[in-house]
């Protein structure tokens, strides 16, 4: 009786010790998938994907309820990165249909109300009260928040103009 109790206690203690040490020694952080996905996303909280901000989009991506092509400002580059992170294949066809746009201010209609640059998630619009606003192309993600809020419809989204800086050869016809 005593022998059995002692030996079982000993075995249990040793195993517990081993398990405890192993749990510390071979500790692996639980996958921070959502956080990692959110770090990949632009973080401009523009809402073009239809989710509440980039963290919502990251959650949806992690649940596999959203396609990797959900982020228009990120473009094919981001879609490929997300697909690699999630281990899925990206169908870039959906992105190609929606060319990236940028906002422009039609100066003859702009009344200088400052509403647009208050909502711009990337501070891409500058101007002042009662002065014409203007968009800095480099910072605009084409989210359209400014176009939605403009009281005079002076802000329009246009396709990114092709210049010598961003032109590139199309693929040869196979």
């Amino acid at each position, binding site marked *: 009786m005593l022998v059995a109790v002692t030996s079982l206690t000993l075995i249990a203690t040793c195993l517990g010790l081993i398990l405890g040490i192993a749990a510390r020694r071979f500790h692996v952080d639980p996958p921070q998938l959502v956080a990692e996905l959110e770090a990949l996303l*632009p*973080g401009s909280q523009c809402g073009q994907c239809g989710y509440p901000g980039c963290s919502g989009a990251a959650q949806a991506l992690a649940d596999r309820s959203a396609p990797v092509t959900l982020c228009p400002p990120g473009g094919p*580059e981001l879609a490929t990165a997300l697909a690699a992170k999630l281990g899925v294949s990206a169908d870039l066809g959906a992105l190609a249909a929606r060319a990236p746009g940028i906002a422009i201010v039609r100066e003859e209609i702009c009344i200088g109300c400052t509403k647009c640059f208050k909502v711009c998630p990337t501070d891409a619009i500058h101007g002042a009260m009662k002065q014409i606003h203007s968009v800095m192309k480099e910072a605009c993600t084409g989210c359209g928040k400014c176009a939605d809020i403009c009281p005079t419809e002076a802000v329009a989204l246009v396709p990114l103009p092709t210049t010598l800086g961003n032109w590139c050869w199309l693929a*040869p016809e*196979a």
Partner: protein
Amino acid sequence: MGFTELMAGIGLRWGVHPQGHKRLTSECAIEPMVLTERLVLPLAQHIGAPARPLVAPGDRVLRGQRLAESGGVVSSPLHAPTSGRIADIGDYPVPHPSGLSAPAIVLQVDGLDRPIDFEPCPDPHALAPDEIARRVAAGGVVGLGGATFPAAVKLSLGKRSPVHTLLLNGGECEPYLSCDDRTMREQPQAVVDGARLMARALGARSIVIGIESNKPRAIEAVRAAAAIDPAISVRSLPSRYPMGSEKQLVTYLTGAEVPAGGLSAEIGVVVHNVGTAAEVSRVLRSGEPLTHRALTVSGQAISRPANLRVAIGTSVADIFAHCGGLHDEVGRYVMGGPMMGMVLPGTNVPVVKGSSGVLALTAEEAGGGTASPCIRCARCASVCPIGLLPFEMAALIRAGRAEAAVDLGLKDCIGCGSCAYTCPARIPLSHYFSHAKGSLAAAERTRLKNDSIKQLTAARSDRLAREAQQKAEAAARRRAEREAAKRQAAQAAADAAPSAPAATSEVGA
């Protein structure tokens, strides 16, 4: 060709032998072309930042006057090729396969050709190395072989890593072109003088001038001129395309290989074109900036093929008209050589500093045809001067896997077109590579933009938080002030109160 050179040529395991077509123009001396009425001068005629205009529409300018200043460390100024009036500064079609427009200065020529006062330098060899580089930069000299890298930037490479050899590229391995050949035959002294000046600026001890063996007269002329300096050796190169490519030239003449993704200066060698050398000599001696260049006008569709010295900004259409117009149907207009030059969508574009030739090719000369499937004969792999596998890379790119093509060395591809030239199935291999390089660059741009947007968003949320905090602090301060004021008022009331009850008590008493 000597026996050793023949053997060396046989030993080369890369390259192709396109038909030269050089006889069309190789005996045509460089003739000055008359000025046209209007010159269009694009602000970005060089690699690097575009130049910044210094003039406004309506200004009168003189020949040699600076129209635009250098726009950055790697950039080059722009000068007026003749006197006239600035008609406009705006977007005009530039030589580019896309046919797009870019900012340019338009000069309405007045025909008087009045110059500014140039400051000639009788003995530029007495100048300090830095001063040579400074004057070359101020003269707007860029690589005239076609790459248009600002020459002065290359001349100051000697400061970063020691340069022992200056190589002068007289390969001119592109078919049709003969303007470098003519420059070497007509002004060998200027070529040699320019080379010595550039070697002085670089601190290079030896100068090697490499000329392809299909230009025996040029070799002869330059050898005779080079006799004045024992540091110069003139070497004959096997006629093989792309011998005039920097990496191939360096490896053939020095035996050393330029590291992948690196500069030849890292192994102590700097390469300049012979035309650039002649121009450096002229710019330093006369004090006149680069405003004209020699170019070859050729192709079977041209009535009178020629070598011309034209003002930068002259339209290609005017040049063709000067050469008797076109007498055959044109299949393709090309600026530069047919192998690496750019296809022009039209002739309403100006000649720029990097235009070594303008060609009007008949459909027969331009070649082409429909591509058939790859049979993996590997001819492209055997001619690739870098030793890549073009057929494999093209297959990956066609399958949308440009990243995998990078692993096979896509970034080391020099775009010489030897693979596409030799492909029996007429697969447009170099087109695939241009496309893939362009889409990779676009992806890189998107990545950079996304990164900067992340920073902007973070900066914005920081700012909003800071503003909210400041507002809260201000509100708290105001509240504190209000409360202090209230307390003070209460205190005052309390101070006043004892006297009042006393009075009443007195009254009461």
